[in-house]
C-alpha cells in the first residue's frame, strides 16, 4: 500500500493506493499519528485506488477515527469503490464515518464548516 499526502487548504488529503489490510492499516495509523502530532487534525482519505479492504483495514480506519476525534479533529473519506462501500454498509460503518462521493464534495464541506 502507498500513501501520498497533499495539503488542500487546512485539510490533509491522503491518497491511498493498494490493499488496506493488516499491513496497510498499520501504515495508515502511523501516517495519521504523524499528522496529529504536527497538529493536522482535518484529514481526508481518498480511497479511489484502494483495490482491497478487509476487516483489518476497517479496524485501522476505526482506530484512526478514534484518534482524530480525541484530537478534536475531523476525518472524511471519498471515492469508495462499490465493493468497499458495500463493506461499510454491511458493517454499518457508513453511519459512523463521513463518506462523500467525491473528494471535492468532502473538501467543500470543510470550507462550509469553516465559514459558519
Amino acid at each position, binding site marked *: 500500500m502507498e500513501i501520498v499526502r497533499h495539503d488542500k487548504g487546512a485539510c490533509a488529503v491522503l491518497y491511498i493506493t493498494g*490493499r488496506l*489490510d*493488516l*499491513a496497510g492499516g*498499520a501504515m495508515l495509523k502511523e501516517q495519521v499519528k504523524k499528522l496529529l502530532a504536527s497538529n493536522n487534525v482535518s484529514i481526508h482519505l481518498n480511497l479511489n485506488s484502494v483495490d*482491497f479492504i*478487509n*476487516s*483489518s483495514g*476497517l*479496524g*485501522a480506519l*476505526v*482506530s484512526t477515527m*478514534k484518534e482524530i476525534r480525541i484530537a478534536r479533529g475531523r476525518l472524511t473519506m471519498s471515492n469508495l469503490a462499490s*465493493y468497499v462501500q458495500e*463493506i461499510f454498509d*454491511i*458493517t*454499518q*460503518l457508513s*453511519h*459512523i464515518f463521513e463518506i462523500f462521493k467525491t473528494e471535492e464534495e468532502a473538501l467543500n464541506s470543510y470550507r462550509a464548516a469553516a465559514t459558519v
Partner: protein
Amino acid sequence: MAEYQFRYASSLESEDQMLDDVQSVLELHEIVGGRAWRFTLVVSEAFTNALIHGNGSDPERLVRLDIRVNELEIVADITDEGACGLDRISHRINSGDLMAECGRGIGFMERYADRVEYRESQTGGLVVSLAVRLTEATKISQS
C-alpha cells in the same frame, strides 16, 4: 481438480505474499469479479485470524493455505499451528460494538463464502475451509 499449496511465516509481510498468491490462482483459472473478490476477502480473514490468534504472530509458526479448484467451486483450507482450534472458534465474541477495531472477520467469512467449515488439525490447530461456488447456484450452506 487443480490443487495449490502455500506456506507462510506468521509475520505481517506474509499477508501481501498470500494475497499475491491467491490473485495468481484466481487469474490462472480466470475467476474474476465478485467471486474473485469474495474469495480473496474470506481467505484474507481466515489467514489473519490464523496468523494472529492461531499462531500468536510467532514467525516460527506457519500458516498453511491449500487451494482446490474444480468446475463447481474454489475451496481454501487455512490451517494454523495453534492449540485448541475449535475452542477458539466456539469462544469467539462478537460485541456488536460499531466502534470495535476487530471482530468482524468471521462475520465476513460467513457472509461472503458459500460454505464455511471449521475443524481441528491433528496437532490441534484450527482448519478453516472456505468455498466459493463458481456456478450460478445459490449458497450451499453456512456454518
